[in-house]
């Protein structure tokens, strides 16, 4: 067995885990991130939802039911973690816009609005009402983006279609990284004689350089341009993940890809190590503390059996509505499926309650009563709890 020693091991590479790891690395701890695969963050819109149920995120948080883990994060901690996030993304040349005081709207690919707090700068010009005059650009054969949905809700919108030679979001985004392609495209765009005030694109304006591509289009067409998030593969989600990952590494954190944790070594009330599979010998990662950020059901942190829900790494006690009948609402699209509350209940230090181990900290959507969809507690919640759990972990180690 190959044994590797760290101060802290973080399990799960979503926004919560990435935030916690990067912050601990900044505090000069020896920290590593272990992940079974890439996170659901890659599939996201890249928007930072703090609490989207209210027009004001802070008021929304205050109105969350008792026992919601957001109440364990102080407003200062929330503000600080989001400020740091914005600074980090600006340093990576992917600035974010918005403020904690007020949520803003982002136009979705079906013409509805999504409430969110911080948006990638490529979505800053997204319309705030459906009477705005916008011109949509779509791409021949791009099957995941139908302008018709938006046109049906926006009376002052029109569209044109460009043949990019490829018909997938990934392929088109890769083309936009090529300056010759961009130039040809811009010449075509100028010929369209667009009259509307703003120009909209599905989110395919490049992989790493989206912001600078957008700026070039804006300066040539002399009006605001914005991206509309698409179905996965979602470029804004990928950009967010890549930037957070690079930032983490620059701070000295280590990432182990595709290392699903298969075993745990315990001693007394402490977890001493987690083991992961490898082709030859298993790896044993020893650490003084562990942070669990493996996500909820889709992320793979929780798994529902017929009779109970299990937490897959440490087998921590999972909170879930007691009565099995309360797990699901009759209406499929309801926001009130009780199963959304399932997760790990924690104390003020983000340590699991009723757990036999005292060196585990939990953050992100695996926390009990989060109800990510219903409350609109997305990446913003993950960033804030990731930071809070990491700080609590650091205090414990001192």
């Amino acid at each position: 067995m190959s044994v590797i020693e760290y101060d802290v091991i973080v399990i799960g590479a979503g926004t919560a885990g990435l935030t916690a790891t990067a912050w601990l690395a900044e505090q000069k701890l020896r920290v590593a991130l272990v992940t079974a695969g890439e996170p659901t963050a890659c599939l996201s819109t890249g928007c930072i939802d703090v609490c989207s149920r209210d027009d004001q995120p802070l008021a929304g948080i205050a109105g969350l039911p008792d026992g919601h883990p957001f109440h364990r994060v102080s407003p200062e901690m929330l503000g600080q973690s989001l400020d740091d996030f914005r600074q980090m993304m600006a340093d990576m040349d992917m600035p974010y816009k918005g403020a904690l005081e007020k949520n803003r709207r982002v136009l979705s690919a079906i013409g509805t609005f999504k409430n969110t707090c911080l948006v990638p700068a490529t979505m800053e010009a997204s319309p705030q009402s459906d009477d705005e005059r916008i011109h949509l650009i779509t791409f021949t054969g791009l099957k995941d983006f139908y302008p018709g949905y938006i046109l049906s809700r926006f009376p002052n919108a029109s569209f044109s279609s460009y043949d990019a030679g490829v018909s997938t979001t990934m392929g088109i985004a890769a083309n936009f990284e090529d300056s010759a392609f961009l130039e040809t495209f811009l010449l075509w765009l100028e010929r369209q004689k667009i009259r509307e005030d703003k120009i909209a694109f599905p989110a395919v304006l490049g992989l790493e350089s989206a912001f600078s591509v957008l700026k070039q289009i804006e300066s040539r067409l002399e009006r605001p341009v914005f991206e509309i998030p698409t179905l996965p593969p979602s470029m804004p989600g990928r950009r967010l993940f890549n930037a957070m990952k690079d930032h983490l590494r620059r701070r000295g954190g280590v990432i182990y890809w595709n290392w699903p944790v298969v075993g745990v070594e315990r001693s007394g009330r402490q977890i001493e190590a987690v083991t992961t599979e490898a082709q030859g010998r298993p790896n044993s990662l020893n650490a003084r503390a562990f942070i669990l950020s493996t996500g909820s059901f889709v992320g793979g942190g929780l798994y529902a059996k017929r009779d109970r829900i299990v937490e897959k790494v440490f087998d921590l006690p999972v909170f879930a509505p007691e009565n099995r009948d309360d797990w699901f609402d009759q209406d499929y699209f309801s926001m009130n499926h009780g199963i959304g509350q399932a997760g790990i209940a924690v104390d003020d230090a983000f340590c699991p309650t009723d757990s036999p181990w005292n060196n585990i900290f939990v953050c992100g959507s695996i926390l009990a009563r989060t109800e990510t969809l219903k409350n609109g507690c997305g990446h913003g919640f993950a960033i804030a709890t990731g930071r809070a759990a990491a700080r609590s972990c650091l205090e414990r180690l001192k």
Partner: protein
Amino acid sequence: MTFEHCIRCTICVENCPVFRVQPDFPGPKQAGPDAQRFRIGREKSIDDWVLLCSQCKRCEMACPCGVEPAQIILRVQQRYGLEHPHTPAHLLFANNYYLSALGSMTAPLANRMAASNIGKKILGQMGIATYIPFPKFSFQTLSREKKNRNRGERKVAFFYGCFINFYRPDIGRKIIRMLQSFHINVVLPPQVCCGLPALGNGNLALARTFARKNVASLSNYIDAGYDIVYTCTSCGLCLLQDYQGILEIPEAKKIAENCYDLHEYLLKLIAEREIHPVFREVNRTLAYHIPCHLRALKIGYPAADLMKRIPDLDFTILDDACCGLSGSYGFKKTNEAAALQLGERAVSLVRKTGAAAIISDCGSCRMQMGGLSGMDAFDPAEILCESLGIRDKK
């Protein structure tokens, strides 16, 4: 895990380098788990686009559900290879080992031929791309190295791989000298190609022949108390993963349990306080291009952990881009455009770091990145040797 565990999240597609630049390839999700649902029958395979997969394994590293798209595609590639005639390029690259042996034997002539215009034309006719120069054959291969026993207790059987043997035996000699400087007893066991090029070109039977020979030889050394150390990450992946997996070699588990990446092995000996290397300053700024197959080995980035101990050495880890060559993949005319586009992207990421040279564990990555950028491309072992003051004899 089987294809049925796929939840169709497309994270694998986002990670596929080929999908990014090759519109004919439907991506790992469609080529792997999706199409697998239709491959159960006995009909002859018609999905020739599976050959466009370069087997970089990035999809497998990214999949959150443990589905192995590349593994599914690899098996379909073998089936396609069985049912259809092979192109000259596929035949040549599958037999790369024999070809290289011949090339090395006639090194001065073979090198001149490969670099000449006529040579390039002939290669082009056979469907082989020549956008970067072919590596130069070395007349004095590593396998001809004289035995040089050292009386250490720690015994290593070095699986050097074809690239070092035929093209860069100087790196191999440095590595041997480095291990010997730690009083490790190094031998060069009888060995042939690991079999990965044959697998990559749809020649399962040939791959199995190579694998059986290697396992028979290495197994004896393990019994005699030797640890197997490899340095080529693709050879390593084949020894560890494919021998147990698709090639179904008995005893492969024993090989996997006793096989170490060179840097992983050094770290292990340092952790066990068996060796105490003293690293001296190396004043370089480097970009560490992580080979896809190093990621797939799931041993972390051990060379990076070692190089962190070298004073003054400044390096940036880049693990998001595939160099595009993928062994013999980029050398085929059909893949040339994709390989070039991917290679140029990888090089542009290197340039952004401001590095003066590239390091990479994989010989073919170095060939591509060095060839396209004109920068020096080193094996991390060369940097370690520089720091430890170990030089090639010459």
